[in-house]
């Protein structure tokens, strides 16, 4: 097993280099200018904007900029944001905890909903509960998060005035501070969690239905283990293999943050940083975020494969 992991990691390095090259070319080719806001400001003569572009080497040929980036990256310098004029790694590390906290807990909420609902719906196919679960799943992933986000704000903040909808992270401690932190995270986590739970429920239900019909389930029931034990120990144990792999594949999305939700609730996460940098074509930041994202994708693909092998004894590691 460890030999297999080592081999996969060795392959990951050139693969990441290739990915970083393609990413850089895509970003360099994409039009846009971090100093665009200066254009219509009469106080700032155009030469200033051009001088800034030259100073940050925006007009150099692409391969040169990539080599600079790679050399800097090798020495651990993740680059310098044009828009905030601050080192990129401080920018990302500042926002990472928020993303992990909000998006992470929404993924958790999604799982806590999807697995029980999916399993229960699969044990009673076409029952009332199953139909309801299906319908809510469809509602879940057919409404975009920007729509449900605003709906939640209108209902819970404006009409009922239960929850604040502007997310501000103020350092502090104590119960009151903790409660406040939770109160303001409820809506974004709900919006994001329900959206992710929707498609996850359908996968869990489908995986369960595939397994529940198999012979060894009848064998298990013939042992008088009782419905609950049969479902948990025998059916779920098998049905969860593809589901666990799917969850592992979605983990990078946790880092990528939820662009739309972070925009609506003003959550200072990686998602909103990514969007503002992309729209302002702040290449170093976008490059850093997407490169970390690529590393996570490769890492979690490996984790998914290892998980698959560990969970399913039939898969041997060649």
């Amino acid at each position, binding site marked *: 097993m460890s030999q297999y992991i080592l081999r996969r990691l060795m*392959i990951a390095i050139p*693969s990441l280099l*290739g*990915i970083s090259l*393609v*990413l850089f070319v*895509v*970003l360099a*080719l*994409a*039009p*846009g200018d971090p100093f665009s806001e200066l254009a219509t400001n009469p106080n700032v003569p155009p030469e200033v904007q051009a001088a800034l572009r030259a100073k940050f080497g925006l007009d150099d040929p692409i391969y040169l900029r990539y080599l600079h980036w790679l050399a800097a990256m090798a020495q651990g310098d993740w680059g310098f944001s044009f828009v905030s004029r601050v080192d990129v790694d401080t920018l990302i590390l500042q926002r990472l905890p928020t993303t992990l906290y909000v998006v992470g807990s929404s993924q958790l909420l999604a799982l806590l909903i999807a697995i029980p609902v999916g399993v229960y719906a699969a044990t009673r196919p076409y029952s009332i509960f199953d139909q309801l679960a299906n*319908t809510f799943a*469809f*509602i879940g*992933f*057919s*409404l*975009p998060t*920007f*729509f449900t986000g*605003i*709906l939640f704000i*209108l209902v819970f903040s*404006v009409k009922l005035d239960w929850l604040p909808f502007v997310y501000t992270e103020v350092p502090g401690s104590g119960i009151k501070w903790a409660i406040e932190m939770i109160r303001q995270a409820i809506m974004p986590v709900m919006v994001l969690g329900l959206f992710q739970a929707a*498609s996850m429920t*359908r*996968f869990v239900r*489908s*995986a369960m239905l*595939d397994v529940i*019909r*198999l*012979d060894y*389930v*009848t064998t298990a029931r013939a042992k008088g283990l009782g419905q609950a034990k049969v479902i948990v120990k025998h059916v779920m144990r098998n049905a969860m293999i*593809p589901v666990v*792999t*799917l969850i592992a*594949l979605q983990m*990078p999305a946790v880092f990528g943050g939820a*662009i*739309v939700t972070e*925009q609506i609730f003003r959550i200072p996460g990686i998602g909103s940083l*990514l*969007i503002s940098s*992309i*729209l302002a074509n702040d290449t170093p930041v*976008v490059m850093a975020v*997407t490169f970390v*994202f*690529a590393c996570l*994708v*490769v890492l979690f*693909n490996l984790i*998914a494969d290892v998980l*698959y092998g560990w969970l*399913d004894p*039939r*898969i041997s590691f060649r």
Partner: protein
Amino acid sequence: MAGLTLASPSAERRGYSPLRETWRRYRRHKPAVVSAVLLLLLIAAVVIGPFVWRVSISDIDVLAGMQGPSLAHPFGTDDLGQDLLARMIYGGRISLAVGLAAMLVSVFVGTLIGALAGMSRGALGYVLMWLTDLFLSLPQLPLLLMLIYLFRDGLKAVFGPEGGIFILIVLVIGGLRWMPVARLVRAQFLSLREKEFVEAARALGASPVRQVVRHILPNALGPVIIAGTIDVAAAIIAESTLSFLGLGFPPDTPTWGRILYDAKDFLDIGPHWALFPGGAIFIAVVAINFIGDGLRDALDARKVI
């Protein structure tokens, strides 16, 4: 019941054809049939609509702004007084086309790459997986920005302003959703190709292609169909999220996603404006998913119906 071979009725059959058999099993799945009818109705409404409802999509009448459903405007009007029904019909064509085309692109490409990676024993598998990882980590926005910037003029010259951007959007949305399907198919292939029936086919001299098409693929269809049907919803929503970020179709092309986006700030003033596009997307997505369910049960020989 499992593993029990029921005595299936053996009355003489009018010549067994897989298609008729699939249709017979599909008909068993009530919601799937209802959804198929619903989807056809939706498509018909969107295609024939303009000839029936002749109101233009861009007539601005500021005084008639934000009116609820009425006889003159069955779906009401938006803040510029434009008729929402006409815009929904016009936009529906594009939204449905984007959804379906993107799903077909993602399922086809995903299955192709997944199968190749799943079947290959050597380097090809790793190369394809590298490609999948690459596409998984490409951020959709800058790619779209770059593609628009590089190809828009060329496509516009060939297909006209709207056609050009339509193809671009479909390719980008479809072209960036195949990776999960590819991974799913690869995982299925890895386990299925070890199965005895595939070895048997191989023993009978079946070429790798035949093994894949005739034997492995039909068994791997379940999750692919599920992923495909979820993709349609994701594609329609991705198109609307693009307008949320200010990209996508030119402003005067009212796709459902675009209308929903424009309506989001007026939810408390004119909820009708957001309800119709939201509802339309919901119906389309539910229909397509139930059809997916029906198809999966119909095509899955192991499920006795």
